[in-house]
Structure formats: structure tokens, C-alpha cells
């Protein structure tokens, strides 16, 4: 392993964790990411046993998960494997596909509610223009958030992940923190 020190997207050695009245926001730097795109004539693979989801959806498997990004394109997530060359593993698992390392391209915020779905949905309604009635468990979408392009993933009823481009980390944190703190009053 390298002796260099990794810094999170928010610029610290340790990921940021902040607790608010009903919600926790956790920076998740441990998530490995790689995109997978079909090539001409390639058969839709099932890397690590994942059944690649349909448009607008996210599925979780054993330690890995995937969400749809665009036509014939998915993002594969692997919890706790950010330090590994996960893209290389994915390429091995789906050799006919285009695989691109994305781990450090994104900042991932895990937002968890401690009191049901309401505070989470109230927060999302301040941030993104998505119809929450159509945003149940297993939905994932990409949309604009304060002029940043972000993925929003419903991991479960009380857990949403928001992913933005890494260089926007500070601005995205500001947007989330501001919106959450306004929910409390």
C-alpha cells in the first residue's frame, strides 16, 4: 500500500458526519465506484451476481450495488473498497464491457432519517425536483441540485444517497447543510 495519506472530498483525513434534529448526513469515502457500459453486441453482464437494474433504478447485492445511469450504462458500487482497484475487478468480471474508474470522481453523502420518511422527503423537496410519490426504495435518478448535477438514490425508506462531482463537495455540503438546518425550524 502507498504511504500517501488520502483526503476525503471535503478535504479532511476523516469523513464528515453531522447530526441534525431528525437526520444524519455522512460523507462516505469508502464506496468504490466504477461505471460499466455495454459495447456493441455485448450481452448484458451480471457482474458479482448483480442483476443490472432497469432505467431509474438501483439494486443491491452482496457488498455491491448498481444503479442505472443512462442507456446501456450503469454505475457499480462496492462498499468499503475505495482503496482497491475496483474498476480492474469489474473489468475482469465483465470483460466485454467498457469499465471506467469513478471512485474519486464523486462525493457520496449518505442521508439517514431517525424519524421515518417524512423529514427525508421534506429535505428532498427543498433540493431536487423529483416526484417523491414515485421515488420509493430502489429508485435512482440524476438531476440538478443547486446547479450541480447529482445522483439521488433511495437506498431504503429512511436512507437516501446524494452523489455529486467531487470538486463540488464543499458546495454540495453547503447546500445539504443549509437545507437540513432549515427543516429544523
Amino acid at each position, binding site marked *: 500500500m502507498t504511504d500517501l495519506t488520502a483526503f476525503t472530498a471535503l478535504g479532511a483525513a476523516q469523513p464528515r458526519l453531522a447530526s441534525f434534529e431528525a437526520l444524519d448526513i455522512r460523507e462516505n469515502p469508502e464506496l468504490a465506484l466504477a461505471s460499466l457500459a455495454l459495447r456493441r453486441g455485448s450481452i448484458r453482464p451480471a457482474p458479482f451476481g448483480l442483476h443490472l437494474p432497469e432505467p*431509474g433504478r438501483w439494486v443491491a447485492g452482496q457488498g455491491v450495488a448498481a444503479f442505472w445511469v443512462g442507456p446501456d450504462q450503469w454505475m457499480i458500487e462496492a462498499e468499503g473498497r475505495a482503496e482497491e482497484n475496483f474498476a480492474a475487478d469489474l473489468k475482469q468480471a465483465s470483460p466485454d464491457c467498457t469499465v471506467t474508474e469513478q471512485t474519486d470522481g464523486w462525493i457520496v453523502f449518505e442521508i439517514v432519517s431517525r424519524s421515518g420518511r417524512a423529514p427525508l422527503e421534506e429535505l428532498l423537496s427543498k433540493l431536487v425536483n423529483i416526484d417523491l410519490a414515485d421515488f420509493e426504495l430502489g429508485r435512482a435518478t440524476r438531476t440538478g441540485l443547486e446547479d450541480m448535477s447529482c445522483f439521488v438514490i433511495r437506498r431504503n425508506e429512511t436512507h437516501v444517497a446524494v452523489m455529486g462531482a467531487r470538486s463540488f463537495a464543499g458546495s454540495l455540503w453547503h447546500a445539504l447543510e443549509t437545507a437540513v438546518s432549515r427543516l429544523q425550524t
Partner: protein
Amino acid sequence: MLIPHPILGSRDAREFTYLGDVRLVDRPDPTGPDAEAAFCDYVFLRDNPAGVHRELWFHEQGDRSCLVVTRSTITHDILGAELARDFALARKRGGE
């Protein structure tokens, strides 16, 4: 506006970047005898209809699909939307 994305359903128009007239798909043959004139039309000339217009919308803040959207420029009613990729492939298969 809401754009009826053929894969993702109704989406906020602000997720899209407007690319203009669908004829941008019909890039002229660069080897044709009148290539320069054809490109001149292609690059500079656009119809500006009051009524039904076919245009390209790029889902830049979404799934990055280019769509061909058929829209009335008078009422903003959207009459249909399809993936530009499918549209372009069909066009090419049409033998043009």
C-alpha cells in the same frame, strides 16, 4: 416545461440543454460534389416555424440522452419524444 423522456418519464426541462433543430442530425456527406454548400446550409440555416417543430434536447443533468422532441412553438405542447440515437439510426437505415 416538462419533457416526456421516453425512458424516464416526465422530467423538468431545466435538466436539459437545448441543442436546436433536429436537422443537426442530418450532417451532409463531406465527399459530396456540393459539400461546402450543403454544410453551409447545415451550419447556418434553420427554419423558424410557428407551430410544430422537431428539436434536440440533451438530458445533460440527467441520463445524457439526446432526445428528439416534437413541440409546438406556439403552445409549447409536446407531441412526442424519442431517443435521438434511435432516430438517427433509423434515418441512416432509411438509406440517406
